[in-house]
């Protein structure tokens, strides 16, 4: 089942922080996060596995609360290069026939 992302869109100034949320009504094995710039393919950011693991990548980090089937992506001190659409992808099983992407969160970082 497609996870729900919020907010749908965010406008930030450089240096500001943002949080993007992803929630599912199903039990999850893992949550993936991708960023897509206009006209390009999605690019992997990170994956969080069952176990409540928190991961980080420069100033972008994420958490996964498997009890609530929720994940959050944290962008701190945003840069212009962070602009794009962020997608979460959720795995409900241990193979890919139950892998779903959310509809995306459009992030626009302004100078």
């Amino acid at each position: 089942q497609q996870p729900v992302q919020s907010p749908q869109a965010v406008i930030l100034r450089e240096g500001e922080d943002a949080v993007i949320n992803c929630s599912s009504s199903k039990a999850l094995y893992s949550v993936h996060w991708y960023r897509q710039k206009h006209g390009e393919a999605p690019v992997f950011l990170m994956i969080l596995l069952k176990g409540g693991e928190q991961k980080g990548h420069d100033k972008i980090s994420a958490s996964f609360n498997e009890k609530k089937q929720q994940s959050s992506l944290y962008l701190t001190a945003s840069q212009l290069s962070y602009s794009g659409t962020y997608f979460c992808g959720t795995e409900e099983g241990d193979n890919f026939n139950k892998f779903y992407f959310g509809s995306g969160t459009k992030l626009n970082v302004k100078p």
Partner: protein
Amino acid sequence: DAGITQSPRYKITETGRQVTLMCHQTWSHSYMFWYRQDLGHGLRLIYYSAAADITDKGEVPDGYVVSRSKTENFPLTLESATRSQTSVYFCASVPNSYNEQFFGPGTRLTVL
């Protein structure tokens, strides 16, 4: 060059015609995927393959056919294209489960 490629990058066709989109990866990844991306729907899985000769349906398989006779290739065929299949199609590959998916550059398909 190593990576994942798609061809053609752009295609315009007419309703009822058969169209095949190609995907090729050089990493020998086990899993390959086809997604379609439409405004407001994000990426939706059409079909995926766990290995050569093993394919399975995703969320939106109707109207599409896939095959995978070789590990590196995963063609997607629209047997009789419809206007609702106008979309951007992405191919992706991954070595195994719980790993990042590597996406191809996409094919923009327009069905008139």
